[in-house]
């Protein structure tokens, strides 16, 4: 039996060795994928990016508020403020046209008299409070309050802009405006109280500090590489579904599968041979991608992958993820009748599993329903196990539930494939 398994492995390796297209899919494409995606996604992780996003600022206010907005945006290293196009000040109409045509991603329109009206409104409110507290001259007649209409800072977004970017910009501007309002309130209070020596501490009382997990007393700050390499490595491992299912479909169409069925060799031995071969392929893929992330990434401006002390556990996760992918490939190859069925279905289903599993969008931001579905995706189990090892510094015992699920998926898909095949021959 062992010799039969060994010969099956030899055969599978020879078939792969002589299939250039298959080799490219297995080894080159995953590397291209992980490098490309990490380079692209790295910019969103960087706090100091060389690429600045131009923002149109339409200033009808010409006051302190618009100046503060301008200064704050300029200080922000993600943006560069554009106030003129073709040496002419930008009007709201020009800004809207440029943004809606996609020439700029964002325009901010600051309304006329915003600074003056904001100050007037704050003055009014503060005066009202101060008078109620009895700090004003009691003889003076109270003036009828002037009606100050609410002001609107308008934001125009390129319709193609992603929602996450849009939300973060809205939050940043909202925070900026709130700070300006707070500052005005404090200043007005100071003036109204007339006590020149009274100075309010205007710095925020509540601040935020991110406590970063430590491994071996070193802070592990997640970066694009730590997030992307596991995610896209897993994606690449699952792409083994395509060559494996094609391999099985080819055996059926070439007649070699029929010959094997007439041999005194169980189909299980053939499956074991394929599983071992493709597991080795998965591990080679994994080590290649880790090597690229450690040694090549620093040369192309990316932080290197930090796997300090995690290589063994990461290898375990990669192996079990490989098993899950192989089980799926065997099932697909068994059920499909042609390569035209197996290849597109394999590719599409891997992309769907990746999407559901949280490779692109984190599961916690998905709708409730999708979060439940995500928990049933083998790619989610693999990804979470990788993050547990690499970012959460867990022990082997803690990843056992996830790798067990991956192995169970392999057992179930392979059993269904064997059962389906047996059933098909009893027609």
């Amino acid at each position: 039996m062992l010799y039969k398994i060994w010969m099956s492995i030899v055969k599978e390796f020879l078939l792969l060795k002589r299939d250039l297209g298959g080799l490219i899919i297995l080894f080159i494409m995953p590397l291209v994928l992980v490098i490309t995606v990490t380079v692209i996604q790295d910019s969103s992780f960087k706090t100091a990016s060389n690429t600045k996003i131009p923002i149109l600022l339409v200033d009808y206010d010409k006051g302190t508020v618009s100046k503060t907005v301008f200064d704050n945006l300029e200080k922000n290293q993600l943006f560069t403020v554009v106030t003129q196009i073709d040496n002419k000040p930008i009007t709201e109409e020009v800004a809207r046209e440029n943004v809606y045509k996609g020439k700029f991603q964002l325009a901010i329109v600051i309304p006329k008299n915003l600074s003056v009206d904001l100050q007037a409104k704050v003055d009014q409110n503060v005066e009202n409070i101060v008078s109620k507290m009895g700090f004003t001259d009691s003889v003076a007649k109270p003036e009828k309050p002037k009606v100050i209409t609410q002001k609107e800072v308008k934001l125009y977004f390129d319709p193609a802009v992603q929602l996450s970017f849009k939300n973060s910009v809205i939050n940043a501007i909202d925070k900026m405006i709130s700070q300006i309002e707070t500052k005005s309130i404090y200043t007005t209070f100071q003036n109204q109280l007339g006590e020149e020596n009274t100075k309010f501490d205007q710095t925020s009382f509540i601040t935020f500090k991110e406590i970063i997990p430590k491994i071996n007393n070193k802070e592990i700050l997640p970066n694009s590489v730590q997030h992307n390499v596991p995610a896209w490595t897993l994606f690449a491992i699952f792409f083994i579904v395509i060559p494996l299912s094609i391999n099985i479909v080819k055996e059926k169409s070439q007649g070699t599968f029929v010959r094997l069925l007439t041999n005194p060799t169980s189909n299980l031995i053939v499956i074991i041979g394929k599983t071992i071969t493709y597991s080795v392929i998965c591990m080679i893929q994994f080590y290649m991608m880790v090597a690229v992330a450690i040694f090549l990434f620093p040369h192309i401006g990316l932080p290197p992958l930090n796997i300090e002390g995690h290589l063994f556990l990461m290898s375990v996760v990669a192996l079990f993820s490989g098993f899950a992918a192989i089980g799926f490939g065997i099932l697909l190859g068994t059920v499909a009748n042609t390569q035209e069925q197996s290849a597109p279905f394999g590719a599409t289903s891997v992309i769907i599993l990746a999407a559901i599993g949280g490779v692109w969008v984190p599961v916690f931001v998905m709708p409730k329903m999708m979060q439940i579905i995500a928990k049933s995706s083998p790619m989610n189990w693999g990804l979470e196990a990788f993050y547990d090892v690499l970012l959460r510094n867990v022990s082997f015992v803690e990843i056992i539930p996830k790798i067990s699920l991956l192995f169970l998926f392999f057992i179930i898909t392979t059993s269904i494939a064997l059962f389906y095949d047996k059933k098909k021959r009893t027609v």
Partner: protein
Amino acid sequence: MNPIIKIESLSKKYKDADQFSLNDVSLEINEGQIFGLLGPNGAGKTTLISMLCGLIKPTSGHFSIDDLDYHHHSSKIKKIIGVVPQEYALYPTLTARENLHYFGSMYGLKGADLKDKVIETLDLLGLLKFADKQIHTFSGGMKRRVNLIAGILHNPKVLFLDEPTVGVDVQSKNAILDYLKILNQNGTTIIYTSHHLAEAEDFCTNIAILDRGKIYAKGTPSTLIETTENARNLEDVFISLTGKDLRDAI
């Protein structure tokens, strides 16, 4: 002579099919025979061979090979039979030697025995100098010969051949048939299907003519010719029993 294959009331009806592909067939094939299963398209030849090889299960009836009942000893049966399918059941990107080593090992052969057997058979069928060439570079006749070798490396007691000479040149056909005769002389019982009636007449010791899932006649070629009115050869017997109607079916 002892019957090596005993078939009793074997029937097969495929799911969703209106008719039985094989209907209550009983047959005995003796050890050492070269037994030809002949019949028009859709007669049930391939269904019968597929069941005997364990590829599909009968709807009813049973059979035994070398006194091993199919229901209880299917894995033992697989060890003593060899199968040469009609299509080239080989890996195109593997060499002839690699294909044969692999399929031989699946029959339990290994080491020097396997290597020697591969070299010997490749040599006998004139393919030794092409042993390390990939199958996709071979001609149809060469592929047929490698296809045959892959089914006989383990010296089977019973060899099933589904149209082993279809689409090959005369030289390859002669090489294949000559080698099969040697195998038969060495004790292998051969069950063979073909549409080449003249070839079957020369090659087979016994023949059964199937049509519409039933056996219409069986015996030696000469007996069948003698007992059929106005028959000069096996083709006349065949036409007399199965008619001249076309058997196109989808």
